[in-house]
């Protein structure tokens, strides 16, 4: 099926994965697994989609459709890391910097060495063992971050440590890629060339980091505040900023992930960062789905059954060995048992880079396709199982604790304090026009906890109560304003669609809602939808006006 175009292939991907996701809702399977399964179904099994495997990191494939899909996948990864950057400011990363470097590097060394020995013991050749060991070493940033974003635990202590570790590993991946690419052609194995590319990577990292920091401190605040007047401009500007960094990172020989992350981080301090995050999220969801489906579609399962024993052993090594090493390193750095455990669980899978490593080895001819399918099997197993482990990490922790498995690490038993308080019994006021502001002010003075919401940050500037920039149409706002726990939701907006939807959602949640009925025309709909109170500004305005006239002696005697 060579004539399939981009719209068709994306269409097939989305329709099939939506069907699978909706059918498997009850089973609470992580969507990542379902996307990869979709890819496997469409690619290797049914042969509907043919996605060219990436030849190297960031390289372009020659197949037209495959190339565009790859760009879409790259967009997804970049947006994901951009989101991560938006969530984590540099200070928050710096707090965990030491442990991230220590654990990141430590784990790479340990896993690589032990993995190599394990592979030799499983009777692979030295060359095969080198490739297998490096494939086992790295964990998948994309998988973990996607799950953390989904769980909304990116900003927890363990989430931050995990992100720090992945950033360190991303740098190591670049080194490893250069090294492994050289294995096939001995002439480029010189020490000088290696050192040069290393220096280039670190210089690039330094430059980008510098630019990001300077920009976020001195350059970005005013232009972005201006752009935020229109949500469309803000979104496109930020995406542009993100992708300029991605391209710059690629030019400097860094991974696009690092570029996107730094771009996000430099915007994290801005007032609009929170709103921006919500706006980027659906875009990311769309493109990352394409990424995972194409990942599944390009898996080579050819002769996977031959090495099933090795596959299982190596998977177990990644699933248990990696967290074990981590647990040990992090607990040594003085973090509590719970945090150490949560962080360690995140590394129990191999990365999408592992497939690239193996594919590279196959193309240069130093390993056979059987190794590639072995890596694919290990990847599938570990990504699927670790997705479950991360999603249910709290339950898993309680289990391991009860079984006494964690005692041997002698981790400190103290609990790091996490700020997870959410609002309760507050009043949400949407739309800071004259009515909204007045209502927010009056309720605030009455001693209520008031949360004022508007899409325009400028309108929230002078309010004394709590404020949040955002579009109440956005489903994630429902959680962020903790609407289910509010005692009242008020909309002063003069936008019919938004008011109707808000009324509907409040009814669903069983929260009382007062809506601005700014025109006779909207009243019937709002009544039917079950608004508890209609702020009939026209009617009360009329009464007030006549009273004013009366006071001034202007009405008939």
């Amino acid at each position, binding site marked *: 099926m060579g004539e399939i175009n981009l719209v068709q292939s994306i269409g097939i991907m989305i329709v099939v994965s939506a069907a699978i996701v909706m059918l498997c809702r009850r089973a609470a399977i992580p969507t990542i697994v379902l996307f990869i399964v979709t890819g496997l179904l469409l690619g290797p099994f049914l042969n509907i989609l043919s996605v060219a495997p990436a030849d190297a990191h960031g390289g372009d494939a020659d197949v037209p459709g495959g190339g565009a899909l790859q760009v879409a996948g790259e967009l997804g990864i970049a947006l994901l890391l951009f989101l991560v950057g938006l969530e984590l400011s540099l200070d928050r990363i710096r707090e965990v910097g030491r442990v991230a470097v220590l654990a990141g590097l430590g784990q790479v060394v340990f896993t690589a060495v032990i993995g190599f020995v394990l592979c030799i013991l499983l009777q692979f050749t030295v060359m095969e063992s080198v490739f297998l060991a490096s494939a086992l070493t790295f964990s998948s940033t994309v998988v973990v971050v996607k799950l953390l974003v989904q769980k909304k635990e990116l900003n927890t202590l363990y989430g931050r440590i995990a992100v720090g570790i992945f950033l360190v590993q991303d740098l190591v991946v670049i080194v490893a890629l250069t090294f492994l690419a050289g294995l096939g052609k001995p002439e480029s194995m010189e020490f000088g060339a290696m050192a040069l590319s290393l220096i280039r990577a670190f210089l690039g990292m330094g430059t980008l980091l510098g630019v990001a920091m300077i920009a976020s401190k001195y350059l970005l605040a005013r232009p972005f505040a201006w752009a935020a007047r229109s949500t469309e401009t803000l979104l496109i500007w930020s995406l*542009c900023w993100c992708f300029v960094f991605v391209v710059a990172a690629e030019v400097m020989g860094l991974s696009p992930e690092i570029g996107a992350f730094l771009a996000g981080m430099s915007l994290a301090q801005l007032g609009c960062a929170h709103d921006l995050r919500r706006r980027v999220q659906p875009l990311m*969801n769309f493109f990352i789905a394409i990424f995972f489906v194409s990942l599944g579609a390009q898996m080579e399962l050819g002769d996977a059954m031959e090495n099933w024993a090795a596959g299982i052993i190596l998977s177990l090594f990644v699933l248990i060995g990696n967290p074990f090493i981590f647990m040990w390193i992090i607990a040594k750095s003085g973090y509590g048992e719970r945090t150490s455990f949560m962080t360690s669980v995140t590394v129990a899978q191999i990365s999408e880079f592992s497939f690239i490593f193996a594919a590279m080895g196959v193309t240069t001819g130093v390993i056979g396709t059987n190794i590639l399918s072995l890596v694919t099997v290990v990847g599938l197993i570990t990504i699927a199982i670790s997705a479950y482990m991360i999603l249910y990490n709290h339950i898993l922790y309680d289990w391991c604790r009860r079984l006494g498995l964690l005692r041997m690490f002698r981790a400190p038993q103290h609990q790091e304090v996490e700020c997870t308080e959410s609002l309760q019994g507050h009043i949400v006021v949407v739309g800071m026009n004259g009515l909204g502001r007045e209502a927010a002010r009056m309720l605030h003075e009455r001693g209520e906890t008031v949360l004022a919401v508007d899409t325009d940050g400028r309108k929230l500037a002078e309010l004394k109560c709590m404020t949040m920039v955002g579009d109440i149409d956005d489903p994630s706002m429902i959680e962020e304003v903790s609407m289910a726990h509010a005692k009242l939701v008020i909309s002063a907006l003069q936008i019919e669609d938004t008011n109707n*939807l808000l009324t509907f959602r409040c009814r669903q949640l069983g929260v009382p809602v007062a809506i601005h009925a700014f025109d006779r025309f909207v009243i019937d709909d709002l009544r039917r939808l079950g608004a508890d109170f209609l702020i009939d500004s026209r009617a009360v305005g009329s009464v007030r006006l006549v009273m004013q006239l009366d006071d001034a002696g202007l009405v008939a005697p």
Partner: protein
Amino acid sequence: MKEMVLILIASAGVLGLSQWLRLPPVPLLILAGIGMTLTSIAPESTMLQNVLMLGLAFLVFAAGMELDPRRAGRQRRAAIGIGLIQFLVMGAVGAAAAIAMGTSWFTALYVGLGISASSTIIVVRILRQRRQFFEPFGRAVLGALLVQDALVILALAVLSSVAAGAGAVAFSVIGTVSLGACAWAFARWAAPFLLVRLKPDQEEGLLVALAVLFMFVGLADWLDLPIAVGAFLAGIALSSFPVNGIVRGQLTSLSNFFLAVFFVSLGASLDIPGLREIMLTAILVFLIVVVTPPLVVVIAERMGLSTRASVEAGLLLAQCSEFSLIVAILGVDRGHLDTSMLSVLALTTVVSMMLTSFIATDSVVWKLVQWHPSRATKRIGPPPKDHIVLLGCGSNSRILLDLLLLQGNTVLVVDEDPAVVEALRERGVDVIRGDGADERVLEEVRAREARVIISTMRRIEDNERLLRLIRGRIVVVRAFDEHAAKRIAAAGGIPATEAEPAAESLLHWVTTSLPRAEKTSVA
């Protein structure tokens, strides 16, 4: 990836520019794309083709989702009248112009279809900026645009199969109708179940919405219909409340992204037009600007809109729709249309959209209203004295009128809505039809001799004009918030704000029917 970044940089620059200059972004985005071609940094064409098709699908999908007949409110009849007649007349005019310029009749049909509709994106943006969504004319215009969108898509389905003979036309009509039935059934049963009853989380909701889009696009493709038909019907399948609201929240940023990229890529994939193309473009723009306003004014007045509202509607609708780009792209895609015609239609769209920002202004409206031949207002009884003039008395102000009458005032009402005038006349209220900001109407009601003039007109500009026209009288103007009140006061009127009493009424309700805050208040 680098190409994507180039396009993004271009659109980021343009969006900034459009915000700064207060011009609509769509024509500027296309111009930026053309600029990329001229400087030969345009991305290669397969990439552009892919982006164009995806963007097109999202554009039409979003339009389909807005298709809710209730948007037109009470102006449904006017909306259908304006939408349908403008579509037919402009289509015929465009086709005639194209034939006169020596194109084939088939190309002429595409050109006609291309300029037959007005732009939803542009008009909605202006209506939103001026807060005119709820004025009768705003509703009529919005409804007319929806009618036109639907007509263009239907016509496109037919036109794309005309070349293959009558059998193919019948087949595509049957296909469109049955796909439409699917969309209706989906909107009725499947969509509420999937997106509301199951309470999907964000990611699932997004996936379902996009799956609906691609499913309909796929079905349309399978039936050999243009993909725009599929995308539009997919939009309709998700257009019922509250499904549309739930989906809209998810899709906003996706469509922002794809539309920006779509318009730039479109510009970048255009041929540089020759003299003949530029001539045809000029003629089409001229026709749109000259024919549309009078045409719409005549229909709108027939349908019962006031003179001024009709003129405003006419000026607002005098541009080419973004759907003309879709017509042209799909025409080229099917091999029915020469790529030079894509350039013609795109340029026509760009120029006419830009012109709208300069034509559809208050000052032009007033000038045209003065030129309008038939402006005789009906005389009322003997000239009153010591009366109250109430300018604007729609259903929102009925309570005000009742209170004034209850206190025994002589009230003279001016309103531009014929339905309102009719209803008030039946109740025996003295009322004339006209615009409260019109000098002659004010003379008619003896505004200068009135005790008080109360204005409930929505637009601040109208009220400022009113205050300029009758200086020195007591004019009470209804204003929503402090901001409006300040402007009214500065112009010499007495503002009566609604926000404050409204907030007080809310607070009263809160105090009587909700439990008090648990923590003790400080004050």
